[in-house]
């Protein structure tokens, strides 16, 4: 799993030893379980947790609104209507119809919503198709596209996060720039469970590589 290559791995390379955490899990499909139960946002929760280990709930026993209780397979249905690619000069256009996209499964000519048109493909249908990343196969989870995509992180389902643990999707360090990029276990160190814990409309609760746990952010790409 890409994002779980850890200090342990480095230490191991240095002869210190230790294992890289590994996650189990099988198939995909996000299962949101809004709970709505009371409790304050922020840190807390019980349960011992570390990356890839058992997970706490954080938030004083609340259940995160978005977590992956179980894995399910994605369907292989994608839109069949050809896109309306404008015939404007200067647009970066790799394709004009789905038929142009023949290099993978379920090729579709997709707009990224930013004036460019490129082929996207389903790169997985179940988590087991994501051996390279070790992460979740996100149904229609491509960035600004509706293809199935392998994500990164340290869990695939709640079961990977220990007893009463939760495995939740997170935006990357650039915020909503590329949508959900990975799934991580919640831990007792988490400073938030849901976006609603993060104040204003643009705040969001995301896994922070710098902190090593979920915390509020409004970061966009650096600049």
């Amino acid at each position, binding site marked *: 799993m890409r994002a779980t290559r850890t*200090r342990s791995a480095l230490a191991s390379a240095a002869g210190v030893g230790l294992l890289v955490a590994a996650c189990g899990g099988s198939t995909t499909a996000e299962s949101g379980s809004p709970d709505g139960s009371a409790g304050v946002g922020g840190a807390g929760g019980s349960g011992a947790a570390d990356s890839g280990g058992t997970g706490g709930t954080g938030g004083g026993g609340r259940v995160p609104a978005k977590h992956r209780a179980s894995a399910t397979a994605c369907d292989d249905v994608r839109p069949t209507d050809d896109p309306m690619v404008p015939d404007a000069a200067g647009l970066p256009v*790799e394709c004009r119809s789905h038929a142009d996209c023949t290099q993978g499964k379920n090729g579709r000519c997709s707009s990224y919503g*930013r004036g460019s048109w490129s082929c996207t493909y389903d790169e997985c249908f179940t988590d087991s198709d994501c051996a390279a990343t070790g992460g979740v196969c996100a149904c229609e989870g491509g*960035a600004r596209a509706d*293809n199935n995509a392998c994500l990164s992180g340290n869990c695939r389902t709640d079961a990977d996060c220990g007893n009463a643990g939760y495995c939740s999707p997170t935006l990357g*360090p650039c915020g909503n720039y590329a949508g959900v990029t990975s799934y991580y276990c919640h831990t007792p160190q988490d400073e938030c469970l849901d976006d609603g814990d993060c104040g204003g409309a643009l705040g969001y609760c995301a896994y922070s590589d710098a*902190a*090593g746990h979920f915390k509020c952010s409004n970061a966009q*790409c650096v600049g």
Partner: protein
Amino acid sequence: MAALLSLAGCGSGSDGPGEHQGPGFEQELARGACYVDDADFRRRELEDSLVNPDNAYSRLRLERYAESAWGSLPEWNPLTSAMGLGSSDPPADASAWSPLSIDDVPWQADALLKLGQEAFFRYPIQAFEPARRVAESAAIAPSYGFWADGSRLGGMVWTEFPSGALLPAYTCGACHASLEAGRVVAGKNNADLDIDAATFDEISGGDRVTSSGREGRLDVTPDGIDNPTAIADLRAVRSQRQLHRAATVENGLIPLAIRIETLIITSLAESARPPRKLAFALAWYLWNLEPEPQGAPPELLSRGRQIFAGECARCHEPPDFSGPSVPLDVVGTDRTVGESPDRLTGSYRVPSLRGVGDRRRLFANGAVFDLREVLDPSRTAPGHAFGLGLEPEQRAELLAYLMTL
């Protein structure tokens, strides 16, 4: 450092455009020492530099740039390792990893310059997972506009994050350096960098987005608006009157250091902060970069200088060829970047024209490719009508002069 402090004390003072490394540099370093050691000084400098205290950028900083908030974050100086081309995995050899040496650097101009230069290419600013894929082969990197320094992916480093994860991360050099004829030009904006394409290919599973159409541009404002801005050419940063396209910050060496420090804090989701000595060294390094004037036929220069005086100098005032910011309506270019509630001032800054001859991606949103296109009356990007009415011969003369700035 105490001796330096005594030179100037930690009061307010100018270090704005025009004061270069030279006779006054000891005073600049003294003020840098104040920035590192004196929280009240830092706070004053921040408050004095914010053009509009009510936009989101300013409000966040006014709320949290204090010892009780961001000042209490842990300092972060992680282990990093160069990203070699040909592998998507971090090096397994522990000897390949090291943090920056900061504490041992003396508070001296050259030593800080060297630290800043090293940090520019080695200190991680933000994780960027798609770089794994970019690093897989020497052929992939340039297709996304990343530059390569020999066998290394330019400006990218493997970084050990506090979680223990080993991830690729940007340094300043990924976006703000270019490869020119085999030579790394620090500070020059990477006009080819297509972060959107690299990101979408990574997450969408495509082999290669032909182009996102956004090379050299990036949406950096947390405002929920799609408003990419051109990556800045930092070689002329000392000559800018304001920082940010929207003229959000009055420029100066200390405001620049604070800008860098807070940029890193926010990119790390407010989990850590850079050592302030490092933030100042980065600012010091940028402050001392020099653009490289281009050559031009001498017979055109005299006339070109006269045309410049009539057409351009009212806003781009010598010797820095910058000036007070100009209302969005007057500039007339795309307003999207300037209207971001994150950085709103109602104006665009007047960019310094020092080094403009080989600058790429001009205007706030990077809508034109280079200086020649700016002055081309047939260009489609709107705004900045200044100079568009020149006759072809006059245009050539003006261009020749501008190339030499």
